[in-house]
């Protein structure tokens, strides 16, 4: 019964791994398959494996996958274009043939009625497994322990990065900062935090500099790359819209960067010229606005 419910789910989920574009989705679909498998193990009188499947596979291994995915970049998705000519077609054909052959062959086999594990599991599945594992398979078991230790060391070696320069101290970092300012005029102070002078304090909202321009340095690069950064003029539009709805004709010159008189502070000038988002509504590109409209976390309406 459980099988006929779970089997289609598993097949669909597995097929989904083939077709979803984002790796995170694939990982989640794999989790579905694995948990379903765990349930099937339970059905097949393997309670120990049921637990291990959930704890080790779904719990540890899949988490490891997700962890690495986060490191690599969640948004790293496959491009649709196949680079190796004929690879996809051949893989599909061969895979289908193999699947057909295997399915046909296995469905033709007459295995007879199952013996069942009631007898073998007498005294508890885990106890019986332990009996076998520590008697007949004890050497294999010890070998796997050596394998796991080797794997752990190997992972450490692979992940290890040799430190080539001395670890920077706070004093050296400060000195470097001063040097950068002297040589290239890089901003000396801390980056502006998001939304400090804005009318909004969400992380995707750039900070407004004293001259009223938005500072891209104040938002995460990831957000900028996704195109989900909200621009200050957009907020200004929103505010104007709200004001119009409220029926007020007042306009706040200080809040609108476009109409703000040109005034440049010595400290803010380099940062603003280099890192500003497009300031005028006419020049600001539409797609970021649209996407930000869709994903706006919360409107102060």
């Amino acid at each position: 019964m459980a099988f006929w419910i779970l089997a289609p789910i598993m097949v669909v989920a597995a097929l989904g791994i083939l077709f979803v574009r984002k790796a995170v989705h694939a990982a989640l679909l794999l989790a579905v398959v694995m948990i379903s498998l765990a349930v099937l193990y339970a059905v097949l009188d393997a309670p120990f494996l049921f637990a291990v499947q959930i704890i080790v596979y779904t719990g540890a291994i899949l988490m490891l996958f997700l962890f690495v995915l986060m490191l690599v970049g969640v948004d790293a998705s496959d491009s649709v274009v196949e680079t190796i000519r004929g690879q996809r077609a051949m893989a599909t054909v061969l895979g289908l043939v193999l699947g057909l052959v295997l399915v046909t062959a296995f469905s033709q086999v007459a295995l007879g009625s199952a013996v069942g594990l009631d007898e073998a599991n007498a005294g508890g599945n885990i106890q019986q497994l332990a009996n076998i594992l520590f008697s007949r398979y004890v050497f294999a078991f010890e070998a796997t322990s050596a394998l796991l230790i080797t794997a752990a060391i190997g992972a450490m070696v692979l992940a290890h990065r040799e430190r080539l320069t001395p670890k920077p101290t706070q004093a050296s970092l400060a000195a470097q900062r001063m040097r950068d300012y002297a040589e290239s005029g890089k901003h000396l102070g801390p980056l502006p935090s998001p939304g400090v002078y804005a009318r909004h304090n969400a992380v995707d909202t750039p900070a407004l500099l004293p001259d009223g321009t938005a500072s891209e340095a104040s938002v995460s690069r990831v957000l900028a790359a996704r195109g989900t950064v909200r621009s200050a003029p957009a907020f200004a539009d929103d505010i104007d819209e709200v004001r119009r709805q409220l029926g007020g004709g007042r306009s706040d010159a200080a809040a609108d960067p476009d109409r703000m008189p040109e005034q440049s502070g010595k400290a803010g000038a380099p940062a603003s010229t280099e890192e500003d988002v497009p300031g005028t509504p006419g020049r600001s590109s539409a797609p970021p606005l649209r996407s930000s409209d869709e994903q706006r976390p919360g409107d102060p309406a």
Partner: protein
Amino acid sequence: MTNEYVVLSAILFTIGCVGVLTRRNAIVVFMCVELMLNACNLALVAFAKQHGNLDGQIAAFFVMVVAAAEVVIGLAIIMTIFRTRRSASVDDASLLKY
């Protein structure tokens, strides 16, 4: 009863296979490998029940252990490659050729 399990196992295995062949994100390829291993495990456990013998479950257990070790090393390698090439695509690491 076992036939269905084994057929399911074969289907999952084949899907994993095709996934390895078609996906290019190394992590997804790796997931497909895991899928294939799990498919095998399912067959092992099913046969254990068919024959009333716990050896199948032991084998599945060992497969899991080996898979864990493999994942650790494999993901470490993927990380290393990503660190140097800024890419997780298996096709990018294709310099070792004719």
